[in-house]
């Protein structure tokens, strides 16, 4: 049940590198458990503590740590977010096959199975699968552990495919440089209105499955307008992962962004 410390779940979060049989289990943090019977009965008096502490501070601290390592090694990290079935993995497969000259690594996030990591592994790119168990999003600490397994080389790209979910991942900074939201034309064009937090925090929105546009009732102009209401600075790319349309533009976007990042 708990994606943060695995306390309510025997298997917790598992992080597995494709090609290695060893599973690494995330350590269960038990420090927040009070052992029954250890309460002192004497009254030590009440004390008011003004903590003013951000609840996400722990995640944000881990995210900063990841960001520091990415910067140090000149790695561009991309957090891919979408609802399930929008074509994140297909897009990634196509990207990796067409990313000539880019040194790529992938971290896959799903509740269960190695399916996506196995698909990515077939492209020859090093990949680590995070299984969150019952968790609905990746957090920065999971990425930290995954990076230790993945060991990306300097001057590379790390793609993080988040758990398919347009709600929860919005709140969790992973330390990425860019967040990319993927929406497919088989979804409603009002997705940005329904899940504004995700679009507000994204740098780019890729509209996928464009080859299916003639068969569905999806208004691209309206979708973009809705997304811009949540985030006036969001950029757009139109793509079809299965047909390969838009992939070259997306790879070019990655190259440009990596240059911008270096020059900052």
């Amino acid at each position, binding site marked *: *049940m*708990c*994606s*943060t*410390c695995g306390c*309510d779940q025997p298997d917790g979060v598992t992080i597995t590198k494709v090609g290695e049989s060893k599973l690494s289990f995330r350590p269960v943090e038990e*420090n*927040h*458990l*009070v052992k*029954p019977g250890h*309460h*002192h009965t004497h*009254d*030590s*008096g*009440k*004390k*008011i*503590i*003004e*903590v*003013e*502490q*951000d*609840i*996400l*501070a*722990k*995640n944000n601290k881990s995210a900063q740590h990841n960001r520091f390592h990415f910067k140090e090694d000149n790695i561009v990290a991309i957090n891919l977010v979408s609802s399930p079935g929008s074509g994140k993995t297909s897009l990634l497969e196509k990207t990796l096959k067409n990313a000539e000259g880019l040194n790529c690594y992938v971290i896959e996030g799903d509740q269960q199975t190695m399916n996506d990591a196995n698909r990515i592994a077939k492209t020859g790119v090093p990949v680590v699968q995070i299984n969150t168990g019952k*968790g*609905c*999003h990746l*957090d920065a600490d999971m990425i930290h552990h995954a990076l230790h397994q993945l060991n990306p080389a300097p001057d590379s790209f790390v793609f993080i495919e988040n758990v398919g979910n347009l*709600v*929860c991942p*919005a*709140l*969790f900074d992973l330390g990425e440089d860019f967040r990319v939201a993927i929406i497919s034309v088989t979804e409603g064009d009002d997705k940005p*209105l329904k899940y*504004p*937090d995700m679009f*507000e925090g994204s740098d780019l929105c890729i509209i996928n499955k464009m080859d299916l546009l003639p068969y569905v009732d999806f208004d691209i102009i309206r979708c973009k307008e*809705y997304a*811009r*209401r*949540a985030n*006036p600075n969001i950029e757009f790319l139109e793509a079809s992962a299965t047909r390969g349309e838009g992939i070259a533009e997306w790879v070019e976007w990655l190259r440009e962004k990596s240059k911008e990042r270096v020059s900052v």
Partner: protein
Amino acid sequence: MHELSIVMGIIDIAEEAVKNNHAQKVDSIELEIGTMAGVELQALDFAWEAAVKNTVLANADREIVTIKAKARCMDCGAEFLIHDQFEACPMCHDFLNEFIQGKELRVKSLVVS
């Protein structure tokens, strides 16, 4: 259901406060949650009940101070209360707004004993 992770974060903060102050438990806790923080209070309640068992927060009273979201129009500079991301500026009816409050997600204070 990221609210569970949020509650786990609150438990961590509470545990640390209890430890640092050589206390045993939390009597009450005050949270500040913005209306645009992306937290569903009902889901938080649900997660809270399950997660605080056997922790220092098990019997703590919880007070949530809701912070109403406020935006500033990037065009005309007007500041106004906002209920969702898509509200237009009441002065110039533009959609270019930036949040100035309402994203808070904080533990404000604790009473420990």
